[in-house]
């Protein structure tokens, strides 16, 4: 079970005192149980669990906390499905869901643009971003 691998007490305490989505997102991403869940579970399963909670009529406080933790866990994956997921608005269950999804998209864009092997003079771009690049890369 995904929810059993995430320390929901820690997540709930962070959620309770969060004044901004940036604080919530960065603190949750730093939690070891969230990082472990990101490694242990396929992003598809994490997304499916989030979508289940997102569709609930009246989720519990624990389910809301779990939902935010799932967003943080999913954000560490570079899988294309995560980018697609982050582009879909969340329901009213998550006040900062859309803002956090914007941050996930931003991370994905940054990762795609910065994965460059500089140890070799023949520079390879490991993943190709969808955005266009008009600058010049100079190999040292």
């Amino acid at each position, binding site marked *: 079970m995904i929810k059993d691998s995430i320390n929901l*007490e820690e997540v*709930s*305490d*962070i*959620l*309770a*005192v*969060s*004044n*901004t*989505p*940036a*604080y919530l997102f*960065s603190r949750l991403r730093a939690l070891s149980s969230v990082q472990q869940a990101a490694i242990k579970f396929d992003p598809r399963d994490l997304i499916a669990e989030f979508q289940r909670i997102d569709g609930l009529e*009246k*989720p*519990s*406080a*624990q*389910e*809301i*906390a779990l939902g935010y933790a799932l967003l943080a866990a999913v954000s560490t994956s570079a899988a294309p499905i995560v980018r697609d997921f982050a582009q879909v608005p969340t329901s*009213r*269950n*998550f*006040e*900062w869901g859309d803002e956090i999804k914007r941050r996930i998209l931003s991370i994905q864009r940054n990762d795609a643009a910065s994965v460059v092997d500089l140890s070799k003079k023949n520079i390879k771009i490991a993943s190709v971003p969808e955005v266009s690049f008009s600058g010049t890369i100079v190999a040292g």
Partner: protein
Amino acid sequence: MCLILTQSEARLSEIRMDTSAGNPISNSQPKEIPGADRMNFDRLDQQFSSAVVRCEPSASFNCHGLTFGSRRARIWKSEDIKQILKDDGYFEVTQDAALPGDIILYFDPAENDFTHSGVVVEAAISEPGQLYRYPKVVSKWGCYKELIHFANNSPYSMVGVKYYRVRR
């Protein structure tokens, strides 16, 4: 601080809030944050038992809503906080010079985010020969309580803390 606050008829979840220069401040005024009314605050109560409780948990305003919005809404965009500081004429004061009525801002440079804010209610004690004491502030911690606490006794990092005063 000079904010104009009027109830918007168009969007009940947001009130009109402008800086003194007329720039709009985005905010939310939720009747309910899903799950917030059923949160368990026992661990926070224990961890910060030395803080004085001024108000019980509420989701209707956050720290920036207390500091800049008269406890009427939740403000969370850092660009809006920057706009308020600029338009309302806040200027920085040192920690030891901060007086009751000045404000404290906790800033996370890595995230470019104002993670927390509050209002100073008691100045620091920094006299020679005495144990240093941080200023006391009143602040709202997310959906949790409004508390009176030492500036360095909260879940928020002190690394980017600054104090500001507004003179009008």
